[in-house]
């Protein structure tokens, strides 16, 4: 019953929520934009007035800028690749009928419930420690020289930690998608002479297309902002300084709010570039 009256009533009733959300988004955005045009050094004189585009120029001309963009994209790309590939394999595996299925599924999902800071610390101290870590013991058991993971292979280590956290999410979404696949389609393909690998390639994988798209889009949003894992492991050293981490350093370590805010605006632009590319590549899967 969408009468004129009920429509305007609906608008009035939705207004508080919409205004609150808008405020929540607009206030920080506008403040970031404002600070980015100011020389603002909280411990060295405070607000030193408008400086135009100086902060923007300084942020990109810094030698740390492009490496940080590359590091961000490497982490996003690496984690997406690992979680999607292994997510599909795990989902297929978990979809097989087996004893203790319920418990196995909960165990697989468990890493997602561990806080990023905690899981990164566990990885750092229990697995990757070059002296006492499990990996070090494993390497020594086979007579190999233990690897100092976080300094020698810092980027793969971070990608591994973050992938471990996000794999359950990918697995969960892909598992539900696999479960919705009509088994008669697989049987029809079997009758049509398709061996298991081809059944996967021609039937299962296309069926998973939409779920994979969702996994990629959602993970990208969160992976662009990965922070805790880097903070507690390498502290941005050894080439693991992402754009987010660079902004953190500019604002809190250098106490330069203006410069950091300009970085924040670049981060928004980068996220949008990535989003546009993603929607071009995988977005068509979302059309019904």
């Amino acid at each position, binding site marked *: 019953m969408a009468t004129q009256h009920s429509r305007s009533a609906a608008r009035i009733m939705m207004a508080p929520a919409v205004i609150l959300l808008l405020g929540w988004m607009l206030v920080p955005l506008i403040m970031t934009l404002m600070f980015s045009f100011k020389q603002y050094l909280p411990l060295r004189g405070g607000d030193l007035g408008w400086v135009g585009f100086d902060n923007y120029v300084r942020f990109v001309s810094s030698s740390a800028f492009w490496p940080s963009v590359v590091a961000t994209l490497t982490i996003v790309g690496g984690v997406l690749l690992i979680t999607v590939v292994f997510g599909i394999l795990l989902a297929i595996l978990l979809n097989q009928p087996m004893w203790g299925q319920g418990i196995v599924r909960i165990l697989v999902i468990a890493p997602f419930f561990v806080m990023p800071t905690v899981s990164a610390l566990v990885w750092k101290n229990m697995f990757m420690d070059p002296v006492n870590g499990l990996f070090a013991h494993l390497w020594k058991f086979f007579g190999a020289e233990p690897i100092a993971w976080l300094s020698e292979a810092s980027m793969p280590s971070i990608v591994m930690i973050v992938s471990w956290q996000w794999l359950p999410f990918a697995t969960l979404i892909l598992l539900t998608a696999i479960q919705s696949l*009509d088994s*008669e389609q697989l*049987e029809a393909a*079997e009758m*049509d*002479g398709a061996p298991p690998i081809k059944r996967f390639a*021609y039937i299962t994988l296309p*069926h998973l*297309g939409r779920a994979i798209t969702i996994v990629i889009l959602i993970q990208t949003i969160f992976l662009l902002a990965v922070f805790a894992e880097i903070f507690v492991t390498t502290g941005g050293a050894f080439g693991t300084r992402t754009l987010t981490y660079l902004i953190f350093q500019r604002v809190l370590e250098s106490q330069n709010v203006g410069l950091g805010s300009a970085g924040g605006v670049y981060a928004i632009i980068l996220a949008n570039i990535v989003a546009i590319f993603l929607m071009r590549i995988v977005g068509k899967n979302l059309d019904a």
Partner: protein
Amino acid sequence: MGQIKLNQVTKSFGEVQVIPPLDLTIEDGEFTVFVGPSGCGKSTLLRLIAGLEDITSGHIEIDGADATNVPPAKRGLAMVFQSYALYPHMSVRKNIAFPMKMAAVPEDEQNRRIEAAAKALNLTDYLDRKPGQLSGGQRQRVAIGRSIVREPSAFLFDEPLSNLDAALRVGMRLEISELHERLKTTMIYVTHDQVEAMTMADKIVVLRAGFIEQVGSPLELYHSPRNEFVAGFIGSPKMNLIKGPEAEKHGASTIGIRPEHTDVSMSEGMWEGRVGVAEHLGSDTFIHVHDTGLGDMITVRITGDIQVKHGDAIYLTPQLDKLHKFDAQGLRME
């Protein structure tokens, strides 16, 4: 090309035996229908023949060669599923081409067979559409097209018409029958609808709880059902089965009389009863007669129409030469 022989085939799911030892031969070129109530094992039997389920014991022979452990793709059978099982992301053309692509048939031969199948099934205008853009009947035809192009030695149909509306079902029934006339290939068709079984089959296999109750041509089953179950299952409306003193008069434990073999009069007859519901179909009238003293309600069928009201007295006389007699075990007495 296309003789299928089941030899002492059984199937158990865990402890439950759904198919007890079963022998059956389906001759080359025959249109065989498996019919029975839900859960009688007819679909399971079809899937055993297809190879989608492993048989627990026994042997399956296709064209004289043992196919018991042959994988489904190598049996040379094509199956049409109840849900059609079309590949939703492929166009109709690609759906039909899929089995040939898997069998590495040359491209131009593929196209020739697709065109031929599309022409035969009226799909030429839809070849570039996705299954989601087709109606139920068209999807069904695509599924049939996909099975035809493989040139299989036998077709297996698993309740293919149960998702269609009544009018389409009649149409598709004809199309499948015509397809069989044209291809002369063995077809096995599973249905719970005895009208489909009667109209399409060369041979009907009536199943109950995995047991074969009777095998025969549609008219054989209609005229001389081997037992009470087949008598009650084949024919619409159902045969009236009467037990008790009335049956004993005819020297049987149960007597059966089909609704169309009962004469009706408003003044005199063998049995007296009261009219319940009268279903007027125009060409026929089905009258449900209550209070005859024969136990259950009796259904009678009258050609044309008759003016009766609820509660009217009505007299029935069975045509004694069309009476079926069954003994205490439910088996037919001659």
